[in-house]
């Protein structure tokens, strides 16, 4: 029997708190899960720094990847024998679902921003390079790794296949919304996925939803909206993210200036140089990063040591609302005052904007801008979701941006009350 068709002698199941069970029958899937690159995802948290706000949010990208695989498996089960669906694409879909986050590193958002990396490029490199994952995929067919890479890169010819993994209503989002809600313990984020799966229909180049399932989709959109403000963009998590970003900047700045670290940061060197090899990239997981942060707490550089202590011991920056348009002059004055107070403003006076954490709200948008969610009407006509749903329409056009100013309030409070600099800083910040 061809490797691609091989089944395990009996079905394997993973117990899962969100989907109850994740079912595996294909040998290829089982082998992929066993590769070192996939197992590495156990050591990368799904929600990065959110565990500092929601202590339950310790789940990993491994959990999530299995969840996305399971959702796609169930969708395909429903698509069997429907028009537009080609059962030959089944294994490709399952592999792409399982492997879609393979290139994520630890705290990937901050790492990518500071060291100018792109996890999607590393996903491609793992799929196509000299890796255990590539070996498994090549056993299916020589060109199979490239097909999986194309699906994940969204450049595969069959757009229906791509849309299962990546579209406005895809398996990726359906898993992470529910999983993140479960592990953070928040009560938003829930929606009736079973219902959505039942009303999904394959079309030539996209997945659409029967109009009768509109209310289930509304719930899903509301869940995205709520999770963004309540979890993903929580101001305390943003504070942790600001400190993390500043640590990475400071370490690189010191390296560039020829600073001698007490412990040579060997795992970081290629990142400082801007060119980590695949092997070096894969070697830097969260445990390694946190080990260095622990070590850097003892560094002689005050800024690096202070920032690491803040991150490790959760002494985060405080924040105030900030309007960059109305408060530009105040910001410039604060910049000077912080310098005078001995607080390097490049590290201790930070404006964080909602766009620093890109998260895709549902927007109907403009024709040709981005493919929206389409509802399939009984007549066979497709209509964009917000044109039929008042609820979606009402949250699609609302103001969804904000800016916050992050500061080490504890350091300001330590300053003498007689200090004019302190007095003026406090006046500007708190009136």
């Amino acid at each position: 029997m061809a490797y691609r068709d091989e089944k395990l002698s009996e079905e394997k199941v993973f117990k899962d708190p969100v989907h109850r069970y994740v079912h595996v029958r294909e040998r290829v899937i089982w082998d992929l899960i066993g590769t070192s690159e996939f197992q590495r995802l156990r050591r990368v948290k799904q929600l990065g720094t959110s565990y500092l706000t929601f202590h339950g949010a310790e789940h990993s990208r491994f959990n999530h990847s299995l969840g996305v695989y399971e959702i796609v498996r169930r969708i395909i089960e429903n698509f069997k024998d429907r028009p537009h669906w080609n059962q030959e694409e089944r294994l490709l879909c399952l592999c792409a679902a399982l492997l879609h986050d393979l290139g994520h590193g630890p705290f990937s958002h901050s790492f990518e921003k500071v060291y100018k990396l792109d996890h999607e490029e590393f996903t491609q490199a793992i799929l196509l390079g000299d890796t255990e994952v590539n070996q498994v995929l090549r056993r299916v067919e020589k060109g199979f790794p490239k097909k999986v890479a194309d699906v994940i890169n969204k450049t595969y010819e069959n757009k229906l296949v791509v849309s299962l993994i990546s579209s406005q209503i895809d398996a990726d989002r359906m898993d992470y919304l529910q999983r993140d809600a479960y592990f953070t313990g928040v009560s938003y984020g829930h929606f009736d996925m079973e219902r959505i799966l039942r009303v999904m229909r394959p079309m030539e180049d996209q997945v659409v939803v029967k109009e009768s399932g509109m209310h289930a989709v509304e719930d899903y959109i509301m869940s995205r909206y709520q999770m963004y403000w309540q979890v993903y963009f929580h101001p305390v998590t943003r504070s942790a993210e600001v400190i993390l970003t500043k640590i990475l900047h400071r370490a690189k700045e010191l390296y560039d200036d020829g600073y001698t670290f007490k412990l040579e940061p060997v795992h970081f060197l290629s990142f400082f140089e801007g060119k980590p090899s695949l092997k070096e990239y894969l070697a830097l997981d969260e445990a390694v990063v946190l080990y260095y942060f622990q070590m850097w707490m003892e560094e002689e550089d005050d800024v690096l040591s202070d920032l690491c202590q803040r991150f490790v011991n959760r002494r985060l920056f405080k924040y105030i609302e900030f309007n960059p348009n109305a408060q530009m002059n105040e910001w410039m004055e604060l910049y000077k005052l912080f310098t005078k107070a001995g607080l390097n403003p490049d590290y201790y006076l930070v404006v964080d904007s909602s766009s620093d954490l890109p998260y895709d709200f549902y927007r109907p948008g403009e024709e040709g801008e981005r493919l929206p969610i389409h509802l399939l009407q009984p007549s066979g006509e497709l209509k964009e979701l917000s044109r039929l749903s008042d609820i979606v329409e009402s949250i699609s056009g609302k103001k969804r941006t904000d800016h916050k100013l992050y500061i080490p309030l504890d350091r300001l409070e330590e300053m003498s009350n007689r200090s004019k600099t302190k007095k003026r800083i406090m006046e500007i910040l708190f009136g």
Partner: protein
Amino acid sequence: MLENHAKLMQFFSSTEEIVGRKKLQKMIYILKKCEIPFEERYQFHFYGPYSEELTLRVEEMCNLGFVTETREEKKNYYQYRYQLTDSGRDFLKHYEMDLPPLNQHIDLMNERSSRFLELVSTMLFFEDLPKEEVAEKVFTVKSAQNYSDEDIEEGWTFIETIRGMH
């Protein structure tokens, strides 16, 4: 603070207006591919390269009053028009940016349809492939757009022209 927003405002200040979100998305991507240091990350989407970061930053600039967005109803969809405001111009005065003049680039792109800019940005997305494979890839991922060999040729000429601008 807001350096990436300021770069985008510099872009808007180089033209009277930008009509269409799709056009805006593709223009910034093409400029990035011309080594103009915009920082917005792009991914390939149904209609070619698309940046969620750009969408959010533009929304932020609109909410801060730096850019105006006007929604116009078309037959089956909305179209959006963007212009830099006086507030945006004032804000920009606080920044010294090393962006080259963009007027010519923008004029050249403004003259073309969003369909053509979608083609060019898609070609640039695949530009690491050999030239003949780029065309093949475009025909595969953009089959609905029915681009012709002549369109591809025109795309290459356009890329050469815009990259030759200083």
